């Protein structure tokens, strides 16, 4: 019959209008600046540097090995190693800059880091009023605590923490074994004496 399709369509749109006032399903818009969609745990944007303890600069896990700098595809990472008064290299970055305007958020730096020092953040409201300095972020702004890392990515951070603890335990055991071996090496003369 002529016009039944039109009536069917009108009914559907009317259901949309009425439903939009009481059914979340029919009005799924999130009012962005006021409310935000909770990001997924594996959502990533820009990298940040993890530090342990309270002092951001002292607790940095970064040892300035520059693997991330070499691996970074768009080469947005810039590192200068710290040197002590004798010009001897120290395991600490003097300069660690990331240019967020160049970074493509691939996360390769976080993947290659053998010290779990650089991780991917989930901030997305980044805008600078300056093209050159605002988005060129230094180590002071990059450093974020392990606590923050736990907040944004709990499972991943737990896994990293347990792995680090395991490494530390192994290192201690190895050191102990070494010490024991050294002690054993030092001991034999007395044992042969007896």
């Amino acid at each position, binding site marked *: *019959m*002529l016009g039944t399709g039109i009536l069917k369509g*009108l009914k559907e*749109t009317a259901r*949309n*209008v009425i439903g*939009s*006032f009481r059914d979340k399903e029919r009005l*799924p818009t999130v009012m962005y600046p006021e409310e935000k969609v909770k990001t997924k745990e594996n959502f990533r944007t820009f990298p940040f540097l993890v530090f342990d303890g309270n002092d951001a600069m002292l607790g940095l896990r970064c040892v300035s090995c520059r693997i991330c700098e070499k691996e970074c595809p768009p080469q947005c990472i810039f590192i200068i190693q710290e040197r002590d008064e004798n010009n001897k290299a120290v395991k600490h970055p003097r300069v660690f800059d990331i240019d967020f305007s160049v970074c493509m958020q691939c996360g390769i730096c976080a993947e290659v880091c053998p010290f779990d020092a650089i991780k991917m953040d989930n901030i997305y409201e980044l805008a600078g009023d300056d093209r050159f300095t605002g988005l060129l972020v230094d180590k002071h702004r990059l450093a974020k605590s392990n606590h923050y890392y736990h907040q944004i990515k709990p499972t991943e951070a737990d896994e990293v923490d347990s792995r680090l603890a395991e490494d530390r335990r192994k290192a201690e055991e190895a050191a102990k074994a070494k010490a024991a071996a050294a002690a054993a090496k030092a001991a034999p003369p007395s044992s042969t004496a007896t």
Partner: protein
Amino acid sequence: MNLVERIDQAPLLLQRWAVGFFPAFLQPWVAMLISAAAIIGVFASLFALSTLAERKGLGRIQNRPGPNRVGPFGMLQPLADGIKMLIKEDIVPLRADKVLHFLAPIALIVPSLLVYSVLPIGRNLVAMQCQLGVLLFFAIGASTELSIFMAGWGSHNKYSILGSIRAIAQMISYELPMVLAAITVILVTSSLDTVKIVEAQAGGFWAWHVCTPWGAIALLTFFICALAESNRAPFDLPEAESELIAGHLTEYSGFKYALFFMAEYLGMMAISGMAITLFLGGWQAPLPMLDFIPSWLWFFGKLAGFVVLFIWIRGTLPRLRADQLMNLAWKFLLPIALLNIGLAGLWVKSSAWIAWPVSILLLVPAVIGLGRLLRGSRPRGGKRIYQYAD
């Protein structure tokens, strides 16, 4: 005069009071000016309201909230739109016909406002009571086609000219069934005076013309044609953005564009007002006991209903193809409207007891048969053969 009547006639009394301040020889002119100013003021603000209602309504239909940033619940959105339109640069194409390009929006907005002069908005509330009111309405309304073609020709743009050619073809095609639908009312009331047509429908909703077999069909025909005449979806082919950018509006910006936009809405409301006057009892209350509500409120209530229906249909139906558009006008609406005139004559000459069954017996097969015909003209089944494209 009691309070109810006083409120009912408030606009008229206000006008008389204002006119009283002027010397006698100026009074008719001042009265005219006040009527014109009132029409422009009221319907321009209704235009603003209906754009807001349209944007909110379409939003809800499409599962989104619509404008909600300007003012509480986005109420000030029309104001923001207006300011934006006014401060935009007015660009005239280098090779455009400057005179036509400038005159087209003016030549469109003037008739759009002029048609309101014969619409009875309430009891005794009509700017110009004219014995040929209905004729005047359609005559002035037809002149908008000229201004649309002026816009298309003056823009010196292929999209504009194609859009305006489409608009002319569409509007002339749909003018015919629309006027034929209106003729039934003229036949029955034997008057072209809009005020008399409204008065003929006094006494409750069963006295309205829509409650007769010919009136219902005529209103439906009239409404479909009104959609096409005001270039609204699903008949917005002249402005089909996927094919013609914006049709005759392509080369217009700033305030000239706003005038075109306003003319579209004014035309939509004027034609709804005419449908209300002809078929839905104008300013008459649906029940005699509801007469205490001012008559102009009834008119504007019915008008609001029509505007909502226009928005609802725009949000629901996809755009027609050009050949479907023409088929609907010439193969469906025109024969129905012609048959309907005969039925209106039967209604006048015989009693309702004869006219009702005869009308149903004639109309139902006609609508179904013509609908089948319409569907038959649509290519379906079989392999589609492309003649020019591989």
